[in-house]
């Protein structure tokens, strides 16, 4: 039996096509994935992402622990700021990618993937031995992402005036925590907006108020094509425990040094350091199809007559109206290649993701 979020009844009422996702019954779309996608690029859409796991870490040892646990460095954070990071195993492979928020002295909040929740909790519990902190997996909250150029305005319109004023001055990648309300200016679409955590009991009214303010519900289908256009990696698809962050376009998230320029000692560092600069490392590239067709995960990428890698994520881009993909490749750099789609080579151009940001084509 799949788990249901606090918004399940509203999704059914809205005619959503529901699918199982990591043990949760989630909306795939509400009629048209492409329309939902475009609403987010052009106006505002909202996603129920309550299946994601929210972990609170509190205690005097929390900061030191996270500096050891994560490949990015929480010492870089200002109060209220968010950080995207990979959590690596000793081999440098990616156990999960996540966002961590610094709430205040000795208090952090992490949002991790639903599919990896149990694995993450086991790993974190194991690594936390010897550090003075408590790790709590929060239950009973809904997480709603409101994204798009009009998203913040729409949210401000339904928050209590004091909360709206506080949210309006949040900088990108910053969050505010209130009793029963957590608002972060983060997202997974390449558009401005918020991710909002609130108690399950408050979630349906909040969702309805957003709907009445003109925010369109959008499903996991649109969430996937939006994040792909934004060049954002999807765990389990673009990287996993056998892939180094350096091979997944995530080298920028590895903090080799602390704020004083000192070498950091995070889990997976020595394995990563041993491979850093290795010409045999695979690397991530973005591809824009020049012919007709839609690239899909697992399809071969060929350059100069040889297979050099494969697509990790591919789709039709609703915004660009053509096929786009993230691929992992090896060998000499190349600017053009082909993708083998159902036995046929389709020409593609190599680009540097993101493909789309803030409603603008970048490739």
């Amino acid at each position, binding site marked *: 039996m799949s788990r249901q979020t606090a918004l399940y009844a509203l999704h059914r009422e809205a005619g959503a096509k529901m699918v199982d996702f990591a043990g949760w019954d989630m909306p795939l779309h509400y009629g048209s994935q492409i329309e939902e996608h475009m609403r987010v690029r052009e106006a505002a859409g909202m996603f129920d992402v309550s299946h994601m796991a929210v972990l609170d870490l509190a205690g005097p040892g929390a900061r030191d622990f996270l500096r050891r646990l994560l490949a990015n460095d929480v010492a870089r954070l200002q109060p209220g700021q968010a950080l995207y990071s990979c959590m690596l195993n000793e081999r440098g492979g990616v156990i999960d990618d996540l966002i961590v928020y610094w709430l205040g002295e000795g208090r952090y909040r992490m949002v991790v993937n639903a599919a990896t929740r149990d694995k993450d909790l086991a790993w974190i519990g194991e690594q936390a031995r010897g550090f003075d902190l408590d790790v709590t997996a929060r239950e009973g909250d809904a997480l709603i992402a409101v994204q798009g150029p009009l998203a913040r305005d729409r949210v401000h319109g339904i928050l209590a005036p004091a909360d709206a004023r506080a949210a309006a001055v949040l900088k990108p990648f910053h969050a505010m925590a209130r009793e029963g309300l957590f608002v972060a200016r983060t997202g997974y679409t390449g558009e401005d907006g918020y991710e909002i955590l609130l108690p399950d009991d408050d979630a349906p009214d909040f969702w309805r108020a957003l709907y009445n303010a003109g925010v369109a519900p959008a499903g996991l289908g649109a969430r996937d094509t939006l994040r792909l256009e934004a060049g954002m990696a999807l765990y389990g698809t673009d990287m996993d425990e056998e892939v180094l962050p350096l091979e997944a376009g995530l080298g920028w998230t590895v903090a080799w040094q602390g704020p004083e320029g000192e070498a950091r000692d995070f889990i997976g560092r020595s394995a990563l350091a041993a491979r850093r600069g290795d010409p045999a490392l695979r690397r991530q590239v973005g591809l824009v199809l020049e012919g007709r067709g839609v690239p899909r995960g697992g399809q071969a990428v060929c350059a100069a007559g040889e297979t050099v890698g494969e697509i990790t994520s591919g789709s*039709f881009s609703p915004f660009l109206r053509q096929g786009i993909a993230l691929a992992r490749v090896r060998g000499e750099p190349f600017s053009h290649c082909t993708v083998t789609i159902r036995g046929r080579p389709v020409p593609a151009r190599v680009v540097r993701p993101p493909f789309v940001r803030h409603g603008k084509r970048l490739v």
Partner: protein
Amino acid sequence: MSEIPSGLKYAKTHEWVEELHDGTVRVGITDHAQELLGDMVFVELPEVGAAVHAGQECAVVESVKAASDVYSPVDGEVVAVNERLADSPELVNQDPYGDGWIMQVRLADDAEPGELMGADDYAAMVESEEAE
């Protein structure tokens, strides 16, 4: 519940066949099929003049989600294809039994009616698939 017009014949691979009473039939995919596939982004049409065989691939419909083969429900020769789908693949979603048709086929002389179903049988099949 998807729409299943009573005047058409259906293949178990979710294509429909409309008898045009001039020795030709029109073929498309059902409302149920387009619903499963989601927003169409490309349709690869057969060539006019091509021979098609019942149960064999004749076209590809590709949605945001996945590419899917279309199987010809009949034996014959393609006499027309729906050129509008090249620029407007979404017609398959919007009007699967009308403007979203895929091809028109002149039936081979020795064509058998084949394993096509009436609307009631097709509806029962869809229902049993959905119950799984």
